[in-house]
């Protein structure tokens, strides 16, 4: 599926958006499987990783993904009330809410980090979510965290100091 992301934001010259998907083993990962076996089309922007439960989601995963070059992180789990382990998705809901508030202060648009629910039968919910998130990220533009925030340029004179 060809996408011209420049349409949304001219900064997409070099590459296409990269979204890391952290998907719950018991529902959303299977929704992604269903989307695949059903031949539902969706943008090739998502790199999905399987986690056993969104309750296993450590905010470190999200922060690390952003640092290492992801433009967005999509976390998907079971609908509230349907967690395989009782309440993991409620924990994820709280953690993601607090993480998004924190990331705003660190200059990351909260829509770069999203949480959604899809059961194993909801292949279309999964594909719609990927489409929506891809459009959001396409509008926001590339994050390129290490190039923009690490700010190594300040050390132009450091080589001389090292001697």
């Amino acid at each position, binding site marked *: 599926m060809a996408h011209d992301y420049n349409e949304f934001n001219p900064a997409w010259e070099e590459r296409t958006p990269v979204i890391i998907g952290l998907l719950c083993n018991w529902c959303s990962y299977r929704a992604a499987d269903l989307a695949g076996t059903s031949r539902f089309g969706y943008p090739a922007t998502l790199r999905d990783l399987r986690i056993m439960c969104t309750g296993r989601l*450590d*905010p*470190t995963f*999200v*922060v*690390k993904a*952003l*640092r290492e070059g992801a433009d967005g992180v999509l976390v998907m789990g079971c*609908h*509230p009330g349907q967690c395989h382990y009782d309440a993991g998705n*409620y*924990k994820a*809901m*709280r*953690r993601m*809410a*607090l*993480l998004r*508030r*924190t990331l*705003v*202060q*660190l*200059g*990351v*648009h909260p*829509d770069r980090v999203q949480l*959604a*629910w899809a059961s194993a039968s*909801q292949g*279309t*919910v999964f594909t*719609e*979510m990927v489409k*929506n998130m891809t*459009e*959001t990220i396409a*509008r*926001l*533009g590339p*994050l390129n*965290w290490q190039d*923009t*925030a*690490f*700010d190594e340029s*300040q*050390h132009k*004179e*450091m080589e001389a*100091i*090292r*001697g």
Partner: protein
Amino acid sequence: MAEQKPKLALYWASSCGGCEISVLAVHEKILDVAAAFDIVFWPCAMDFKEEDVAAMDDGEVDVCLFNGAIRNDDNAHMAHLMRRKSKVLVAYGSCAMEGCIPGLANFTDREHMMNFIYHDSPSTDNPEGIEPQMRTTVPEGELTLPEFWNTVKTLDQVVPVDYYLPGCPPEAKWTLAAIEAILSGQLPPPGSVIGMDVTVCDECSRTRSEKHIKQFYRPYEIIPEPDICLLDQGLFCAGIATRAGCGALCPQVNMGCRGCYGPNEGVVDGGAKLISALASVVDGATPEEIDAVLETLPDPAGYFYRFSLPHSLLRRTHLVGSNGTRTVEKITATPQLDPKLKD
């Protein structure tokens, strides 16, 4: 003979001076330290100059306790100098280890800081708009200032570090433990943090129960019960994700742990772990209920990264725009998930 004693150096970079005082908090044992070591450099307390250190052979100093973050060229120059001259370089205290309070400057940038400090702050009286310059020519010659960096760094982001002593400032017992380990030659593996590998909760005597936080209070808003966990009472306490070693000093006096000992052993990003631990005990099962609770916790990034922003995974705020107009990135319209697809 004096030449036989191991040589000790202490240096402060971007710090408040509290670490220097904490070295003296070993009380009369400072005499043992002075007897055991030949102190060759300690700008806070003794009259040695940078040129005295520069004249030494490389690796001549046995141990250097380096406190303070790296926020300008001079700090970096001294970090490189002390690294070159020292066999063992210890990042002493939270600033050198994680960036600490000076590292909070990473929430903004140099331009914004200069504007505020030299022009916009209500107490500034600077009608001529004078700003510090790196080079100034005066009749006597040219004066120079080190370059002020945009981003505060930790010691180990500038030079390799052998050991870390956490704390703001480190507790005297751990300073002594480090010095004794070095003296006895029984050193932990390089890169170790000298301290404990449990959290402040393990040292705290308050009674904990299952937590359901319905509202966060700021310290002035309530008088906490003396023996009950502060977090149970809705007071922010970083003890749940902070390395032990201080003896839970702050919770003992009704103040939630600030997190100065940094993340526990093996943790990559202390702030993210704190988010994880704290959010999971928020009471609420819908986004609205959760938001209502989180609304009572102002400045979450400030709480979670108070001591560790430069050493966190993201290191600093990503700024769009400059010169006081900084914002987080803007988006015109957020596409919404089709409501029919939600159940």
